[in-house]
């Protein structure tokens, strides 16, 4: 269930504060993510969880605080640096490229690894063709892993919600990420789909050693697959620790108004 407890820190956020106009999305949040672990971020709606992921990704720039990724400290990330540094993510409201097929969407995940210039692309023979094939093979492995072979040529706009979420995971996995940020990957899924998704996440963590930061509302899932948990409420961190520690924490229980799963 959990990988070796490596004590090496992959990502550290310190005293992150983020506000939009008068709205304080995050207030003085600090925590770390260790290499190889599955770290869940939980909290009631509006707690700032997605904003936290957006800060790690470089989409939002915090007013205060620092992000230290792979030893390098920054005031703010740029999306491209994040992606080039091996951070990939999925989104709460699926952000797939609706005009393209499953295969093409996942291929875009390989983008940071592809580099042949326009000239070769126009000719298509030689280097560009080889690069395209090479990455196509990798993407096919991802497709096999996620069991979505039958829909590879389908335009994603036509796929049901659960499959779209899986394709989005595929796009993130195609980037061979060091850190994978998942924003409510189970939202809107039935039990079977959740089991499948949990399996994929755990296998990714186990086999490839990918560090995972996960936002999730389903407490059963969180308890089952996380190594450690951070709890946010109204933009502040109110608890952290192992799943069992967090579940027993009175602050957390109060924040959720006594709602418990399992």
């Amino acid at each position, binding site marked *: 269930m959990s990988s070796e407890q490596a004590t090496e820190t992959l990502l550290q956020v310190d005293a992150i504060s983020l506000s939009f106009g008068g709205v304080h999305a995050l207030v003085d949040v600090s925590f770390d993510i260790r290499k190889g672990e599955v770290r869940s971020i939980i909290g009631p709606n509006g707690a700032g969880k997605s904003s936290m992921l957006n800060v790690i*990704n*470089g*989409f939002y720039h915090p007013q205060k605080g620092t992000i230290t990724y792979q030893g390098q400290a920054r005031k703010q990330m740029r*999306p*491209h640096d*994040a*992606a*080039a540094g091996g951070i*990939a*993510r999925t*989104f709460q409201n699926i*952000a*797939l*490229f*609706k*005009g*393209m097929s499953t295969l*093409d969407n996942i*291929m*875009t*995940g390989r*983008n*940071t690894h*592809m580099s*042949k210039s*326009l000239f070769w*692309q*126009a*000719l*298509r023979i030689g280097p*560009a*063709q080889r*690069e*395209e*094939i090479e990455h*196509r*093979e990798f993407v096919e492995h991802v497709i096999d892993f996620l069991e979505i072979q039958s829909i590879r040529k389908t335009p994603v706009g036509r796929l049901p919600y659960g499959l779209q979420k899986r394709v989005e995971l595929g*796009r*993130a996995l195609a*980037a061979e990420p060091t850190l994978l940020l998942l924003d409510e990957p189970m939202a809107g899924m039935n039990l079977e789909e959740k089991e499948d998704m949990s399996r994929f996440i755990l296998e990714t963590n186990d086999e490839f050693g990918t560090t995972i930061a996960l936002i999730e509302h389903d407490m059963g899932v969180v308890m089952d697959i996380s190594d450690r948990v951070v709890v946010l409420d109204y933009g502040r961190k109110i608890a952290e620790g192992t799943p069992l520690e967090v579940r027993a924490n009175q602050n957390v229980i109060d924040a959720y108004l006594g709602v418990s799963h399992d």
Partner: protein
Amino acid sequence: MFYRESGQLKSSYPADQAIFPIAQDRWFVIGVLAAAFLVIPFFLNQYWANAVLLPFLVYALAGLGLNILTGYCGQVSLGTGAFMAVGAYASFKFVGFFPELNFLIVLALSGVITAVVGMIFGLPSLRIKGFYLAVATLAAQFFLVWMFNKVGWFYDYNLTGMITVRPIDFFGIRITGPEATPAAKYLFTLTVVCVLALSAKNIVRGRIGREWMAIRDMDIAAELIGIRPLRAKLSAFAVSSFYIGVAGALYFAVYLGAVEPVEAFDINQSFYVLFIIIIGGLGSVLGAFLGAAFIVLVPILLKNIMVGGMGFDSGMAGHVEILLMGMLIIFFLIVEPHGLARLWQIAKEKLRLWPFPH
């Protein structure tokens, strides 16, 4: 029945990724190309070349360029007319400075110049989107046309303000000016357009094409997975402008022979090409060709029916043309935003299933 893909199995990725994976499609395209290269030149006369085939090819090329920018990358541009002008004037000046230079090189250089201009006017796309960007391209449209009109250097201080193409030989065959045969003009243009169309198809199905489409579909997500918006958008402007510039050069040198900036490259031209890709199909290489065919043929048909058949004057035919174009735009946008190309695709799918209904 006779158009099936079952049994046509692919055992390698290159085969699966081919432009025409279905054998019947391949044969069809080869047939069309064979007819275009080997058969038509013998039946070609001045009228057909000048009124139908040359404008079709030139506008298809311009449509390809605009489709790259607007259809694949989602950046709306109303400056196509002005960019065609850049290509035309660039070719004029190059031929003026280096009369012995191979015309293909002249075309390529004109395209490059237009690509640079396109990138400059495309810089605002980094901060603005949608029809705000369309306004920025309008700035390009009006400014450039004014510039070509006013600054004498561009038209060699000719008193009429027009530029006229010199007679140019291509490996010994005359391809511009009154002495060029329709067949020569046609074959030259056809070759250029085919090569560029193939390149376009290769680009859009590769990495860069996917980047463009990602930006079009959801640019924020694209940025977050590591695509650099700057590079993607500017490359779209560059490639698109290259194509449009070459189209403009061909429009001037091979098709018309002489142009005057306000008439030939004004905002109406920009709309014209935009209509080609809307009707033909946004985001489709085939669409540029279908749209161009449509837009070139409909006015001719209208004129023949209305002026020849029903006795209206040509002014009225012109008004009806405008009315019809507008209605068709609205029709296509409502019914099939992916244009004729999608209709073609649906027809093929139905053909695949024939004689079964679904």
